């Protein structure tokens, strides 16, 4: 090993260590920002060291590409609204996947087609995996992006034989890969593999409905890590393997947390179509004779005013209505009147893990007021008001006792235990699971109908006048 080689390898090692330290620091909000910066420095070191190995002839082109990519990335990162975060993460994820596909193809092309070299089997398998996982990650993330920002319907798209088709395509990709293994200059096999991987990504994500997106995004995140890992095997680069493994495990853990939050298996989520079938089952069951009590703006204001503790349960509806800022105003107003205000956030609320927390942080709600369901559960029976904004299935008591309910067994926020429950909702439409929420018919539950932002603004004004 030459000196420059030792230097380069050591720098990669340093980069990998910085990634690990960076992630370690992410475990507390107070140190998280520094952690992210440490990880970014690790990346910078890796990139600079890699650039130092470049031949002078290729340097300008690479530098131009780096400048273009950085410019776009930076621009998008500062332009994006916090409510668009889920789709942005999905989109960037897709780019990572496409980059892995590009690296795999490029390496194959260079060695096999352009220079007629023989690629050893292990490297070739890594290339094939890099292409396959990268392709699935790319189109899968793109579909998730399009679903999240409404370019295509967020509903699950299901058709007969979908799973069999996916399975056949996966088999076909193995066959195509096998052909390339058998005869290395078989470009057609590579073309077919790349095409199938792109198609698979689309087909795997379309049957998954909007509220299952947290699982899908986490899973795709994990894929992008695995794709980076495969690329590491192609290029025999330890740092790529370490970084890819970190991302891969991060995605798997988040996926697991999301699935547990819904009490569903990963297989059940990935098979898709959740909510569509159960909706009909319930109407047939004829449970739709729920009698709800409505509450007006003034009355709601009086209730808030006379409470001594309030727990707010936000859901995806809060993000849609952009109600986080007005909720923050409500919180401040109540705090001034010595009313204890806290937030209970369900792990699957919103469209990605931690979605609600980011929106509330954006509205300057301090993070120590945001609690997990377990942390607040004991206090709920002593709470005067639980205020539900745009959440539905995660507060449905049917999850506790109704064995026939599709959400039976899902851990919920036991909002019904509070003295009074106020629900801000646009209409009586059911939540993602397509079932009616029996909570709305409970004697202690009051419905505050209307757009969350508009009605809350009125409530806040009422309280101000008191």
């Amino acid at each position, binding site marked *: 090993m030459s000196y420059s080689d030792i230097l380069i390898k050591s720098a990669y090692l340093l980069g990998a260590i910085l990634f690990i330290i960076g992630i370690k620091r992410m475990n507390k909000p107070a140190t*998280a920002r520094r952690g992210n910066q440490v990880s970014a420095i690790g990346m910078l070191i890796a990139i600079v060291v890699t650039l130092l190995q470049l031949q002078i002839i290729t340097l300008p082109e690479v530098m131009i590409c780096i400048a273009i990519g950085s410019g776009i990335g930076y621009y998008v990162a500062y332009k994006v609204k916090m409510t668009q975060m889920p789709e942005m993460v999905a989109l960037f994820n897709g780019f990572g996947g496409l980059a892995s596909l*590009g690296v795999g193809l490029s390496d194959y092309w260079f060695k096999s087609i352009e*220079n007629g070299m023989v690629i050893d089997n292990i490297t070739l398998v890594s290339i094939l995996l890099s292409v396959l996982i990268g392709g699935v990650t790319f189109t899968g993330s793109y579909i998730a992006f399009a679903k999240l920002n409404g370019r295509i319907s967020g509903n699950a798209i299901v058709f007969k034989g979908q799973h069999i088709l996916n399975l056949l395509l996966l088999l076909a990709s193995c066959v195509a890969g096998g052909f390339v293994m058998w005869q290395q200059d078989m470009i057609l096999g590579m073309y077919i593999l790349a095409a199938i991987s792109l198609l698979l990504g689309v087909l795997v994500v379309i049957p998954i409905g909007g509220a299952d997106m947290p699982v899908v995004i986490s899973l795709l995140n994990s894929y992008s890590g695995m794709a980076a890992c495969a690329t590491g095997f192609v290029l025999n680069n330890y740092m790529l393997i370490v970084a890819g*493994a970190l991302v891969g495990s991060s995605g798997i853990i988040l996926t697991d947390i999301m699935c547990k939050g819904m009490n569903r298996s990963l297989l059940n989520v990935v098979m898709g179509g959740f909510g569509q079938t159960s909706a009909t089952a319930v109407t047939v069951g004829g449970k739709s004779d729920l009698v709800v009590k409505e509450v007006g703006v003034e009355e709601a204001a009086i209730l808030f005013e006379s409470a001594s503790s309030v727990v707010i349960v936000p859901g995806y509806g809060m993000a849609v209505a952009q109600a986080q800022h007005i909720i923050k105003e409500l919180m401040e107003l109540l705090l001034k009147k010595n009313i204890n205000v806290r937030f209970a956030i369900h792990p699957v609320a919103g469209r990605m*893990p931690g979605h609600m927390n*980011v929106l509330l942080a954006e509205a300057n709600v301090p993070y120590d007021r945001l609690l*997990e369901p377990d942390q607040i559960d004991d206090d709920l029976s002593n709470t005067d008001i639980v205020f539900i904004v745009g959440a539905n299935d995660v507060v449905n008591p049917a999850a506790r006792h109704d064995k026939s309910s599709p959400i039976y067994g899902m851990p919920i926020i036991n909002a019904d235990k509070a003295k009074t429950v106020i629900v801000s909702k646009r209409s009586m439409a059911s939540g993602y699971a397509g079932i009616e929420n029996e909570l709305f018919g409970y004697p202690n539950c009051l419905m505050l109908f209307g757009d969350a932002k508009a009605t809350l603004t009125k409530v806040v004004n009422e309280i101000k006048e008191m």
Partner: protein
Amino acid sequence: MTVEYLIALFYILILASYCGFELISKIPPTLHTPLMSGSNAISGITIVGSILCCNQLGYTGASKIMGMVAVILAMINVVGGYAVTDRMLKMFKKQ
């Protein structure tokens, strides 16, 4: 690549995954979105691979173009991911 070398790579893969599992399971739900965008930025490490792909001696047309496209994409992922994570984490404040 020899099988022996492959096994060494697997050692790294498994130890790093274990390390990742240990570290990430301790991250509170409040930080899950920044964790995702931050780890997303880390997965942009394929940038190293794509730069190396641009640099093979004697490369021509197709492999070069693909390498360059990969550089741009990975760089969007890296810079965008870190910048947006920083922007988010800046907002997390204590009482």
